[in-house]
């Protein structure tokens, strides 16, 4: 039994795939650490503020929980090991889930007060920004976020990188975490979770997303149009489905990255465009929902803190 336990999914060269469940303990530990820390932070904050943030906190917790659930599903058996060692197409699917599911959900599920605490932002605006905030600002500048994301996209698709890293648990873990971090950074200018961080206006966001939809075409084309399998890992992996050879699997990975990723990005662009166009109409009355109002209170740190009663 012990031999079937792994810490993190990693590539297997020459070992046949079977549909027997294998526990990936590292995935459970990561989810427990993230979820536990999050729950503990919410609890501490509720105690410190007398529950002032509770209604909007539920909203955040729901998103963060959904992000963790997606992270678990995409890293655990069977998607994790299949993508790490057998099928490039499943590897590409995991990348898409990380980028367009896990990353935005974790980011939008982190309440602004928690993000402020993580970035060591002083409640007093007169205090100069600390090192952590300065680094976060520099990293999430739109052009930096854009470049790092695309650079990582290209680097993590290089055969030499995939074949060297995915065959070990540490390498596979490093790749996954690097990809998740890059995706979260990529989303910051679009979502602007805090006014202290860089953000983009609507037209610039459209441009940013357009760029994100174009650049992945380069690695996706290599995957789709290569005559031979690019990755030794996936080429020499025993077939999971006898009808799916390594080249077809690779083509599916390339097309999935390009088509599914592109459709998601263009879908977001469409929503943003119409929202922007709608907001530009001069006679349009802007309506704000209560939950939006609550989120803005948190975002701009405008809530009145409950002060404990004076000692009698």
């Amino acid at each position: 039994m012990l031999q079937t336990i792994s810490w993190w999914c990693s590539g297997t060269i020459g070992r046949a795939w079977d549909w027997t469940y294998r526990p990936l303990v590292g995935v459970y530990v990561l989810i427990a650490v993230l979820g536990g820390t999050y729950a503990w932070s919410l609890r501490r904050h509720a105690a410190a503020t007398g529950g002032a943030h509770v209604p909007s906190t539920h909203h955040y917790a729901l998103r963060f929980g959904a992000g963790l659930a997606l992270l678990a599903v995409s890293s655990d058996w069977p998607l994790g090991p299949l993508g790490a060692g057998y099928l490039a197409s499943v590897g590409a699917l995991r990348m898409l889930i990380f980028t367009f599911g896990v990353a935005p959900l974790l980011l939008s599920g982190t309440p602004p007060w928690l993000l402020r605490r993580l970035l060591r932002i002083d409640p007093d605006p007169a205090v100069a920004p600390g090192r952590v905030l300065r680094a976060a600002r520099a990293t999430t500048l739109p052009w930096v976020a854009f470049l790092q994301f695309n650079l990582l996209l290209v680097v993590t698709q290089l055969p030499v990188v995939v074949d060297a890293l995915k065959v070990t648990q540490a390498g596979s873990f490093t790749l996954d975490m690097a990809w998740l971090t890059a995706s979260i950074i990529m989303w910051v200018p679009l979502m602007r979770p805090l006014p202290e961080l860089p953000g983009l206006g609507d037209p610039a966001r459209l441009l940013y997303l357009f760029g994100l939809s174009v650049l992945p075409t380069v690695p996706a084309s290599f995957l789709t149009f290569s005559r031979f399998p690019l990755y030794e890992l996936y080429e020499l992996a025993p077939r999971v489905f006898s009808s799916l050879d390594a080249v077809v699997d690779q083509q599916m990975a390339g097309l999935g990255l390009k088509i599914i990723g592109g459709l998601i990005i263009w879908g977001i662009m469409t929503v943003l465009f119409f929202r922007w166009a709608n907001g530009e109409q001069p006679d349009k009355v802007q309506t704000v929902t209560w939950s939006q109002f609550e989120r803005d209170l948190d975002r701009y740190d405008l809530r009145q803190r409950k002060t404990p009663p004076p000692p009698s």
Partner: protein
Amino acid sequence: MPPRRTLSAGRRCVVAGLILLLAACSPTSTTASLQAAEPEYAPGWNGVAVEGTPEMPAAEFTDAEGRPFDLRAAAMDKPTLVYFGYTHCPDICPVHMANIASALDSGSVRPSQINVVFVTTDPDRDTPQVLGDYLDNFDASFIGLTAPQEEINRFVVDLGLPEPVLEKPSDGATGDYTVGHPGQVLVFDAQARARIAYPWGTRQSQWVEDLPKLVRGDWA
């Protein structure tokens, strides 16, 4: 002296969790050990030169149609790739066969210019019919051969390869079992002499590069 900064209990837990996670991700996982060491390739080839170029031993095989097959005679005609495997093989046999089939499919040589032979190491389960059906999944030109187990073992050992090992349950129970067998593809020249061994891990692009040289007989 400024007060020493200490981590809160929560942060200590997070740091400890991350350290545990990273420490547990050992690079010496069982999966990593499966990667074969880099073989010493023959200059200009993607395979390893066979020392002494042993001649193909004589043996009485039966093909997938159930007819006697003289492999030695067939090998005198054109270069012959011989692989010893079995159809229930869960890992390397189908990958080897699929890679050779894809290389042939790419058009670098015509299937008629080369023999690709799959000799079973598990004749009990691999009947001629089973062999034929299995190889048709890869390429209809592939030749499947079987013989009594002792005959196959002798043929393999005479070529200087390790004898196949049937890993059947010791209690005599029937059912699935694996067979230990050589992992390389042996290439014989048109005089039926073993020239090059392509180890497990030979890639499609490497086959495409080497197949025309095998057909031309550009031996080192």
